[in-house]
């Protein structure tokens, strides 16, 4: 009967209840949207950086991080691959890369470029790099073909079919130079790299740099990217006798961690402001409701209802309102999130340039995460229930005679 009383009390002033439910609903929607968008953007940044730059984890020569030179490239042959794969079932596969900086020249213009030799099949399996080709295709080993970041191609005034000249230093000071046919242009998600990346096949790059069978980085693709530290430790044990070390993306990009943490903090501040605004809105309604029903509370206390039971009824009312608001917020929020998940927000013009400059894609993606639903739903629920303390305290200290006046 207490539940019935609480439920019916909700609907005695339909408009007020609907306004309260709506305000909680919009609060949940706003909180879900802000958090999902923030998480989506951070995840996108992380995916791009780990997918195209570092991977989740790398094996390098132990000297390479301090001195990223081809001289510190290491031998990657079948025996090393087999040793890692055999000892570590949680390693999905390995991606060999060799990278260095060289001069890249078109017909008239020369610029510094980052040359990366990759195993295209494995690379695509990891980051779907083929899907980022705007035009053309990756070449096979020995075909002497190069794929350029679109930004770099524009700077060098090169198009598919043109010849690219590369000049630089190979392993142990060897002179390296070669001519490559531009076979494709890639739309690289990180602007800085888009303006300097050149992809060659792994073998072509190793030949160009006089570093046969050598790689500068071996990207480790784990079965579970969320559980890197144990794998990192066990892999370190496996490769330490080869003068190799294992680095996670967190160790390789501490500045990215800082950027993510800062972004998370800004998001939290926004959420807290939102919570405060919502809290005051809901408090206003609960306050009105409490004052309106003061006399009724007085009568119920007079006839023999315990204060605790009366407070319980009011608490259940607020709980009903909160649950209705949170559930409808989940409903509406899911529709909105679904829409933006399948139709990400695309920025154009100056805004897009600005985002590129900060290393972000000009697209904002939404993450669907049960954790966000749980967290935001609970946060709003807790706020509402805290607000409910007001009528409960009011009832606890209510003077029966005063309230009946």
């Amino acid at each position: 009967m207490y539940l019935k009383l609480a439920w019916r009390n909700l609907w005695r002033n339909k408009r007020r209840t609907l306004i309260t439910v709506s305000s909680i609903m919009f609060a949940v929607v706003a909180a879900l949207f802000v958090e999902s968008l923030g998480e989506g953007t951070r995840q996108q940044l992380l995916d791009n950086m780990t997918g195209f730059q570092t991977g989740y984890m790398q094996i390098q020569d132990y000297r390479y991080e301090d001195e990223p030179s081809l001289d510190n490239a290491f031998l990657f042959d079948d025996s090393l691959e087999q040793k890692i794969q055999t000892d570590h079932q949680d390693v999905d596969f390995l991606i060999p890369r060799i990278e260095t900086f060289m001069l890249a020249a078109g017909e008239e213009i020369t610029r510094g470029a980052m040359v990366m030799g990759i195993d295209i099949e494995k690379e695509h399996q990891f980051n779907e790099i083929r899907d980022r080709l705007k035009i053309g295709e990756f070449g096979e080993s020995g075909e002497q073909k190069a794929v350029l970041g679109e930004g770099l191609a524009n700077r060098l005034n090169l198009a598919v079919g043109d010849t690219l000249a590369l000049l630089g230093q190979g392993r142990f000071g060897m002179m390296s130079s070669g001519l490559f046919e531009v076979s494709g242009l890639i739309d690289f998600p990180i602007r800085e790299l888009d303006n300097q990346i050149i992809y060659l096949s792994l073998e072509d790059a190793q030949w160009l740099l006089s570093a046969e069978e050598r790689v500068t980085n071996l990207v480790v693709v784990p079965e579970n990217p969320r559980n890197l530290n144990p794998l990192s430790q066990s892999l370190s044990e496996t490769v330490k006798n080869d003068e190799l070390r294992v680095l996670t993306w967190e160790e390789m990009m501490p500045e990215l961690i800082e950027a993510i943490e800062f972004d998370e903090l800004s998001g939290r501040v926004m959420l807290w402001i939102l919570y405060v605004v919502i809290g005051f809105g809901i408090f206003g309604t609960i306050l009105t409701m409490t004052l309106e029903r003061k006399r009724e509370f007085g009568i119920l206390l007079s006839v023999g209802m315990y204060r605790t039971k009366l407070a319980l009824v009011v608490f259940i009312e607020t709980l009903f309102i909160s649950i209705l608001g949170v559930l409808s917020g989940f409903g509406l929020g899911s529709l909105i999130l679904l829409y933006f998940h399948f139709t990400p927000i695309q920025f154009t013009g100056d805004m897009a340039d600005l985002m590129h400059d900060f290393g972000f894609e000009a697209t904002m993606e939404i993450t669907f995460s049960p954790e966000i639903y749980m967290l935001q739903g609970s946060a709003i629920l807790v706020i509402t229930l805290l607000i409910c303390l007001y009528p409960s305290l009011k009832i606890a200290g209510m003077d029966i005679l005063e309230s009946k006046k």
Partner: protein
Amino acid sequence: MPIITTHNLSKVYNPDTVPVHALRDVNLEFEEGEFTTVRGPSGSGKTTLLNMIGGLDIPTEGHVEIAGTRITGMKESKLIEFRLNNIGFVFQAYNLIPVFTAYENVTFIMLLQKRSKQEMKERAHELLSAMGLKDKLDSRPKELSGGEQQRVAVARALASRPKFILADEPTANLDTDSAMNLLDMMEKMNREENVTFIFSTHDQRVIDRARRVITMVDGAIDKDERKSPPS
């Protein structure tokens, strides 16, 4: 043994600023089955007296005993339980829970007493029928007239099987027909079930029906008259 006794009951509001003597040394006894009216002008202390007897207010001096139990100074949780099981209340207006039907309003008080479902059902039907509201069981307060609402309030007060009912100006908002009808019902319950009623009122219609009339002036008992029962 009297059902209610007040011993030297006094109440002073604002004792430190502008003292208002709402009750002055009131000594009264009420027997079971009385149909009593406390009358007097506004501010004479009628409602304060009823609040003291009902345990809703605390006297500055003196105490109240109900069926031998001293309720003055009782712990609040004990007092709530005591009120629930021993005292029925009918207030001037806004007596009922607006979202409950007449039937639910009556059963609610029994729910607080943790009575069985069957007993609640039977008692609610019996009381509402006795109050002439058999066909209004499912009506909510806003669908009832003022008189009907007060009759539901009386049924609710009786539902808990209290030792007596305190009715604070129950007819104040009612037209003559509704007031007479309500008084008829209460008189019937008094006569047939020996329910004790104590009213505070300045409504002459109520005073005329009462068998005992206590007149209060400035917080003190001015007169305490008993009428002979109708032959």
